[in-house]
């Protein structure tokens, strides 16, 4: 029986099944924790733990799906080009907002984590917490963090931003829908952008473009910023 788990097919099939049913549950009940990624990850982990299957066996197949994140990052460049046309008129304040917000994200999360006593690999893994998962994985890899931890934190941040972002922003006095969209894309990447789309098409475009710009910015500056904190 255990040979079956070693086939690439096993990891791929269980991921597709988990994703399919998680999406069904997510569209049936509108509840923030019924996010398809979160549900899929939790159900697969439970399955592996219950049947005592090693992560390595699952990942024989899982890595093939993970590999597709590489071309997905390139596809973000196409998205970037498309959205760029829509918000040209606001480009300077918008890009400034994303750059300052994105830089604040790295500085604040690293300094807080260090103050609270997190170990160095943890700090290096959570530094890219606000950018889209495929880019965060690459950054974590480059700066000596743990990609799996980075992925988990990034997904959690996205769900947090998606669930509470607009409410937090409104309480803090941010009423402009475009500003809400940009903030969600900068702080909570694609999962936040999904929520920005609920605010409207244009806020969704702001979110998508903010995600791309912050991803690029974070990829460039994180190696230097992290070394300022940990040297």
């Amino acid at each position, binding site marked *: 029986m255990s040979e079956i788990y070693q086939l690439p097919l096993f990891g791929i099939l269980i991921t597709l099944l988990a994703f399919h049913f998680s999406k069904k549950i997510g569209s049936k009940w509108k509840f923030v924790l019924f996010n398809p990624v979160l549900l899929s990850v939790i159900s697969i982990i439970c399955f592996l733990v219950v049947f005592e299957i090693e992560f390595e066996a699952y990942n024989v197949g899982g890595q093939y799906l993970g590999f597709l994140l590489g071309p997905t990052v390139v596809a973000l460049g196409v998205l970037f080009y498309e959205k760029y046309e829509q918000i040209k008129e606001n480009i300077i304040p918008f890009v400034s907002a994303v750059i300052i917000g994105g830089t604040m994200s790295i500085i604040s999360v690293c300094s807080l984590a260090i103050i609270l006593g997190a170990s160095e690999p943890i700090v290096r893994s959570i530094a890219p917490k606000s950018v889209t998962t495929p880019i965060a994985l690459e950054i974590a890899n480059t700066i000596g963090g743990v990609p799996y931890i980075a992925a988990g934190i990034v997904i959690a941040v996205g769900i947090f931003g998606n669930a509470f972002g607009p409410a937090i922003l409104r309480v*803090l006095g941010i009423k402009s829908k475009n*500003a809400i969209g940009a903030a969600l894309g900068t702080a909570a990447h694609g999962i936040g952008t999904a929520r920005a789309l609920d605010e409207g098409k244009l806020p969704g475009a702001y979110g998508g473009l903010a995600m791309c710009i912050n991803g690029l910015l974070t990829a460039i500056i994180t190696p230097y910023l992290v070394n300022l904190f940990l040297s």
Partner: protein
Amino acid sequence: MFKGVLYIFLFLILGEVIVYLFNLSIAGNIIGMVAIFIALKLKVIKLQEVKAASDQFIKYMVLFFIPYGVGLMTFYDILKLHWIAIVVSTVISTILTLYVTGIILQKFGKNE
């Protein structure tokens, strides 16, 4: 659609080659992302040639990072040790990032 997939992989490889040649500390796919944007901007390639393929990749992006999320299980012990630092720092930092980005654009941008 096929042409679009081909282009995306070509730009991915281009990014990897640039990283290798110039010994950069940025991932090849991120360079590929910038390169395809520039190619579109300079009209080297057309949006409709790559749009269908890129939309598919983006549509299923969340599926591709599920295996990495599952990989968290192997770090249970480390996470158990550091979870307070992780949760507190990410929550505060996320709220700060949301606010800073939002307030700047609201103050200085043109809004509807």
